[in-house]
């Protein structure tokens, strides 16, 4: 074993990708630079901002600190797998409605973290929402509108279920 490239298979948004990576390449680099899945953003690269968040088997993780070689055999979900312009996920619609998006740089991370949280617990308290999103820096919205959007999503989901 050395730092020559190795061939790995990744499952991203239910699609298989076979590619050659070096061990020091992070999942973030592979997504953006090798696969052009540029919805995942790099804010800091050191774990502080949350903008690079993706889901691994449904769990939110920071792709800037995950080695790509360690993501084999896991289901990777990126923002490209959550919704599209024609069919937005409820949280995406709510962020638009409530003004929870301005420059949008933090939004993919916020959307994925919210998705993971709501899959685990469809009715989180305000405290739980804040705990789940505390690792996400937003320089534009002041956070309140993001929280409002998450709360609106929770209501929307529970309405459709009742």
């Amino acid at each position, binding site marked *: 074993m050395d730092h020559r490239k190795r061939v790995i298979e990744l499952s991203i948004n239910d699609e298989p990708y076979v590619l050659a990576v070096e061990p*020091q*390449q992070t999942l973030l680099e592979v997504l953006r630079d090798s696969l052009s899945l540029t919805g995942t953003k790099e804010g800091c*690269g050191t*774990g*502080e901002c*949350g903008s690079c968040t993706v889901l691994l088997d449904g769990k939110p993780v920071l792709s800037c600190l995950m080695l790509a070689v360690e993501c084999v055999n896991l289901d990777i979900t990126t923002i490209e797998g959550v919704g599209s312009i024609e069919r937005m996920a409820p949280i995406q619609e709510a962020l638009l409605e409530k003004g929870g998006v301005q420059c949008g740089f933090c939004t993919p991370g916020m959307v994925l973290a919210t998705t993971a949280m709501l899959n685990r617990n469809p009715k989180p308290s305000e405290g739980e929402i804040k705990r789940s999103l505390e690792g996400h820096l937003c320089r534009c919205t002041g956070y309140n509108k993001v929280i409002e959007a998450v709360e609106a999503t929770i209501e929307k989901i529970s309405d459709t279920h009742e």
Partner: protein
Amino acid sequence: MHLPRFEYFQPSTVEDAIHLLEIQKSGARLAAGGTDLYPRMKYGLTRPESIISLRDIPVTPPTLSQDGILNLDAFMPIKEVVNSRVILDNAPLLSEAAGRVASEEIRYMATLGGNLCQESRCLYYNQGHNFQFIEPCFKRGGDLCYFVPKGKKCLAVYMSDTAPALMCLNAKVNILGSGGEKQIPIEDIYSGDAKHPLELGPTEILSQINIAKLTGSAGWAYKKFSLRGGVEFAGVGVATVLQMGDGKKVCEQAGITVGAIAASPLRASNAESLLKGKEITDSLLKEAAKAAAEEIKVVPHHGYSTPYLQEILRVQTHRALGTAYERVGVVSQK
């Protein structure tokens, strides 16, 4: 930001990991969650030739032994420590402290062992050194300190949230190495030297954490002080346990430990003995908090001054003791 190149190994047993450490010598680093190590590598603070990843090694779920000892696998993710029912029931102080580590994403990635083995930190050290603070300080192998320009030694602070909680619970850790396995009190993994805060040898792995369960007549609390209260390292973190007698009035044994204050977590022994054998009143808790703030030698850090941290330490210790007392008899948090 990119990681520097390294050779990569993914052993599937601890024994294989130790064997790799022996072959690779000092050029190798273990990576568990990588949330402490990889940012340091991106900043160029450490440049290991090889990475020995612990991710492929199966994690044993927590168990409670017949004699009431909780055994935790060091490779357990922090998030699982927070959620584990058996930890919540038997060592809720650890659940509370683990829940205050970093952010939700990092809690999913990071491990308990990695949290204990994290490097000490300093405002000048934890950053890139390309355009400022270029000349290496003591911690980077140089001969100066940016924080205390006339200082003779490094004053970086060890900031683990779980460490003070585990020390307060008198945890023991298992260390596996080429020489076999040993079990030592958690205190003994610290060197007291901020430059190399951990006493672990180059081929040693922290493999297990063992905690005696708290009984129903104990109260506990972890109070983490930070300015914003979100993702932030502690200004100080105070862990307390009040072990009460049968009537739940007299304190049989008290534990008060403080993190993010020095090169290792510290125990406030004078404050502990003040409480021992006494009936708990608020004025006694105040007195103990004052004693803790007086006996702990505070290292200023991250913009907090010594007098400020001393006062915060007093206030947080008082609050932690108060919460611990309120919780006496409440076995589990939930």
